């Protein structure tokens, strides 16, 4: 239908008055909200990030690059590197743990899926603060595991609290549903007969995953991984509770600059850098996806 495909979405909905195109009514309201609560405040943050810090009035409107320059301080570089490292490890761990779960859910019966999905989604309804506290209760020096171990005469051997590993463990648990759900949706669209065809041609289980399932579920896996990464690098509560003083992430620094140090220009500069990193990664993953698609067209 060339006539229809050339028209804009929403054209089919009778628009009145006729000089206002249909899409205005469809996305207009949300666009207004978005501009009011996201675009304008963000523009404000970007502006503040190049203003000068003033202890008496948050900031004064004198342009400076000092806030960004301060991020080159080895301490902040270390925080940024740690933030990205924790994000990356969390994402990889979620993918490794989540892909098999997503596959299993995508291939089991309707009834099991309902229960499985409930179990996957339910933790998302509990706040991150409570879940992080839960991990503290479990992993702490006087936590459930150590107390139980001591009662068995094995001593308090678990010393994982206040390490990067503790942050990653909690983050993996918090972020896993974000990876499983889109990946599962992608795997559901891969017919079982494709797995059988690969198996018939001589592919073992691992080869079927590597050569058929992962490439075909890649869009879902990628969007899930991106979600996980974005959430993981912008957390505040989890590293504060699980990581202690020595494993602070960029979110913690921003929080402290806003609430404690009252240095809003520097906090804004850090926020802008975080957003820039996310956008850069988004662009990179899109480009990688396209390159992958092109490669497979050539015949892998």
């Amino acid at each position, binding site marked *: 239908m060339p006539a229809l495909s050339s028209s804009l979405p929403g054209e089919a909905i009778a628009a009145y008055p006729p000089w206002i195109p249909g899409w205005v009514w469809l996305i207009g309201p949300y666009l207004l909200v978005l501009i009011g609560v996201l675009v304008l405040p963000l523009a404000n943050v970007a502006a503040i990030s190049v203003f000068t810090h003033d202890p008496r009035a948050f900031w004064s409107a004198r342009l400076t690059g000092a806030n960004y320059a301060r991020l080159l301080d080895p301490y902040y570089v270390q925080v940024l590197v740690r933030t990205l490292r924790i994000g990356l490890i969390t994402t990889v761990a979620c993918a490794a743990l989540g892909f098999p779960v997503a596959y299993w859910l995508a291939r089991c019966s309707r009834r099991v899926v309902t229960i499985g999905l409930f179990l996957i989604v339910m933790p998302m309804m509990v706040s991150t603060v409570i879940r992080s506290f839960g991990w503290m209760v479990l992993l702490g020096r006087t936590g459930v595991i150590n107390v139980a171990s001591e009662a068995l005469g094995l001593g308090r051997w678990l010393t994982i609290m206040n390490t990067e590993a503790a942050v990653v463990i909690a983050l993996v648990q918090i972020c896993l549903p974000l990876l499983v759900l889109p990946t599962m949706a992608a795997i559901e669209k891969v*017919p079982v*007969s*494709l797995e*059988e*065809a*690969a*198996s*018939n*041609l*001589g*592919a*073992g289980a691992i*080869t079927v995953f590597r*050569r*058929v399932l992962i*490439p*075909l579920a890649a869009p879902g896996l990628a969007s899930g991984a991106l979600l996980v990464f974005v959430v993981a690098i912008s957390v505040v509560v989890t590293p504060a509770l699980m990581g202690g003083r020595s494993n602070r992430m960029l979110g913690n620094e921003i929080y402290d600059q806003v609430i404690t140090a009252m240095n809003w220009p520097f906090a804004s500069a850090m926020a802008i850098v975080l957003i820039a990193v996310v956008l850069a990664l988004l662009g990179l993953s899109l480009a990688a996806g396209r390159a992958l698609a092109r490669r*497979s*067209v*050539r*015949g*892998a």
Partner: protein
Amino acid sequence: MLAQDIALELKSVTKIYKGSVTVGPIDLAVRQGEFFSLLGPSGCGKSTTLRCIAGFETPTSGSILLGGERLDAKPAHRRDLGLVFQNHALFPHLTVAGNVGFGLALRKVGAGEITRRVARTLELVGLAGCGARMPSQLSGGQQQRVALARSLILEPPLLLLDEPLSSLDLKLRQQMRDELRGLQRTLGQTTVFVTHDQTEALAMSDRIAVLSNGRIEQVGTPREIYGAPATRFVANFIGESNTLAATVEGIRDEVATLRLPAGQLLRARLPAGTTRRVGEAVWAIVRPENLTIQPAENSQDDPTRLAGTLDTVSYLGEDIHVRLRVPGLDPLLASMKATRRAEVALAVPKIEIGIDACAVVVLAR
């Protein structure tokens, strides 16, 4: 059948599901180079049997042998069988060449060798030069050929076809049927073909196994299956047939005289070696094309002629299908070529039906 001629053998293979569905026990022997069909309605167990051979289902009991070796002990990916799916199951993220070369790549064959063999196999199935295309850019028939090439390139000892033609439209299906059969003959490829379409099975097969409710009803050549059905199910499933309840009135010179419920007589030639007793209750099965229709004459004394009336006449171009009413019997079906003579015979309402004794199949009731 000599033992060395047998490619595939199924020995009392059964598959019992948690529910009520049960398949088997199935005993089959497929010869080297044979085109063997598993034919039956949906749910008859033909697909389950095929999936047991391919390794996607594990038989509850029994054994499957290929070339005398146990096949059922190996996982699906070690069986080295060819399999063409109903929906083609091409890998959408790979090109045609990528699909066809998939099995060779897994077997660590060199890139140059793969390219050569892919090109040769694509030529074999009539898709030379299409290697760079994506499956989504191909028509249904072309996708079917790619799926076939993907299996044939590995030169499998056994090719399994799971209703491969049913997703194609009628014209293409007939064309692919002939091509597939031609290719199978040329290559001498031992093939097991699963279908619910009797025309396909009759047109392509060396031998057919007819399945119903998880059991084999009859194994034979298309001619045997159609001409001498072993059971009522086979007679009714393969083509149309008239099934008449009758009792054996007398037997002389291998010709039985059967009495129908309303008293009419029917002659049936019994195949050599069949034993029928006088007074035995039987089914007499007659194909519609073996009924001949003539305008009724006054002589009523010929016992092999049934007097009746025309019920409906359907003109189908090449053929005419007729429903006949005969006192005391269910409506009979007759079919004939749409000739001038046939139309003259059908112009009168009262007719006589002749049945050739050689065309009547007698089964125990």
